């Protein structure tokens, strides 16, 4: 029975998308345009340079394009479904999350899981096309590919918890849309979506190592393009796993606080 409700909750997003073909077209167009733009930008930047920040043209382009694909994993129109925490707080419908025999934390996780799996389908399709078109390089070896997949999974777990933190913020401050935009920008910047982290000044990268953002994308992508050697992989994977555990404990604590806040204020 638990499998059933998990399946139902997970498929809310994909189902909503399938019921709205214009949204799917939008995702497709945006993905194509963004890949073309990013690939041309990095090719253009490398016109007079062969290696920069320890990355060759192929590595940089592959990294940047994969970053675009990976960022699609959770960048859907989250508000369209009116099922975000901020909207539930705004419409006062958050009470229903606390009226069901399914904990809000679990429901939230199931919804995100469905969303990420759906996004992964898009990313994978994009990856296959880009690989066939020669835009991205294949991984150096089967081992690199395997480590990348593992690291990517951990990265997605870290990402889930970072996004969850943003959602949980809404329990304390309803009017945080501007703050959220800024934090999403920080997440994109410090995870390497805008530019590979290797291009940033040393102090910035040092700062990043103390933050969870780089564990979401920079680590798996660097492993993929070979900017992080396979021999360093265990350490990096351990750091990612550490972040997952840490963030999980923290968000679990916040869920309890959020519940206490809801039941002391009445939603």
């Amino acid at each position: 029975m638990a499998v059933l409700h998990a399946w139902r909750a997970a498929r809310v997003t994909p189902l909503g998308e399938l019921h709205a073909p214009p949204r799917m077209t939008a995702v497709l167009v945006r993905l194509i345009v963004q890949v073309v733009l990013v690939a041309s930008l990095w090719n253009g930047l490398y016109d007079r340079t062969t290696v920069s920040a320890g990355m060759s043209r192929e590595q940089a382009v592959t990294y940047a394009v994969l970053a675009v694909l990976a960022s699609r994993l959770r960048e859907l129109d989250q508000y369209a479904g009116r099922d975000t925490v901020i909207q539930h707080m705004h419409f006062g419908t958050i009470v229903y999350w606390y009226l069901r025999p399914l904990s809000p934390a679990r429901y939230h996780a199931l919804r995100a899981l469905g969303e990420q799996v759906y996004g992964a389908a898009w990313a994978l399709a994009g990856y296959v096309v880009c690989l066939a078109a020669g835009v991205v390089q294949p991984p150096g070896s089967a081992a690199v590919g395997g480590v990348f997949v593992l690291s990517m999974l951990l990265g997605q777990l870290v990402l889930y918890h970072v996004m969850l933190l943003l959602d949980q913020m809404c329990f304390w401050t309803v009017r945080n849309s501007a703050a959220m935009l800024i934090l999403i920008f920080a997440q994109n910047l410090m995870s390497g979506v805008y530019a590979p982290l290797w291009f940033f000044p040393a102090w910035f990268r040092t700062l990043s190592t103390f933050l969870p953002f780089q564990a979401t994308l920079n680590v798996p992508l660097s492993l993929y393009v070979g900017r992080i050697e396979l021999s360093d992989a265990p350490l990096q994977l351990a750091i990612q796993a550490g972040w997952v555990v840490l963030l999980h404990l923290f968000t679990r604590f916040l869920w309890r606080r959020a519940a206490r806040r809801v039941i002391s204020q009445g939603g």
Partner: protein
Amino acid sequence: MIGSIEVRSLSRSFHTTVRRPGFTGALRSLVNPERAVKHAVSDISFDVAPGELLALLGPNGAGKSTTIKMLTGILTPTSGEARVAGVVPYEDRERNARNIGAVFGQRTQLWWDLPVRESFAILRDIYEVPGAEHAARLKEFDDILELSSFWDTRVRHLSLGQRVRCDLAAALLHDPPVVFLDEPTIGMDVVVKEQVREFLRHQVEQRGRTVLLTTHDMTEVERLAERVVLVNHGRLVLDGTLDEIRRKYGSTWQVRATLADAHTDVVPPPGITLLRQEGPQVVFGPDGPDAPTVHQALKAVIERYEVTGIAIDEADLEDVMRAAYVHAGPGAEGA
């Protein structure tokens, strides 16, 4: 006890920040907020028997919603105790959740982007309702609420009346013995309202569900509730039948008469008061503790005035409630 609600000395107060007026006031509140305590519900006790429909009445801000939130487990009381179907709702929220269904006015629990039937399916799996039972219940709801004509539509495209009917069905799909409805028919047209009332009557009489309802629609109260609880300023003012409220706050009778001469100077007989006058149409009601019975009043009116038509009415419930809200405490508005 399955399906019963017991409320004992339930109280709830909130801490709020006092907003100082003016620009500097806003800045000062930012640095040094001033707190105040507001008693939303104070010392309320009542019982609802299994299979009973109770209307919780009171003006806006009287504490009705706060009470319902405590009984659904969303809000913890400051003091006092409540039991819903034997469970303390705010202590065992998930167990309570299986026993209750709730609709909060226009706030929908349906998934905005999905066809309604998908929402029903999600809820079915969350509440672990067997498939056959789910289908049978859906059919039963559809018979009265006529959901099937629009349940394949996405929620965002439903009209208000359609959405609230779906929300009602969604709240009852897991067969809860206790149902909380916070202004369920607000903003609906008369046809839909009648449909919802019929549905609720069916659920109470045929299915034996306990229903706690808040509403401002007195027709609804008259049609559905045998018993009402009246709250104002967070306190319980009256717990009884509609007749008791009528006796306490309303005139027990009204005499409507049509005068032959519209310009008659109307001075009512002793113990009788003039409630309304529109041209030749006048309405009399009892005045004070020594008011005459309706028969004596009828006789007195006919003797005193030249009338072309006369009729006896029960007092209008809206008038009774207005009197009750005003009686129950000073400054009822905006409390």
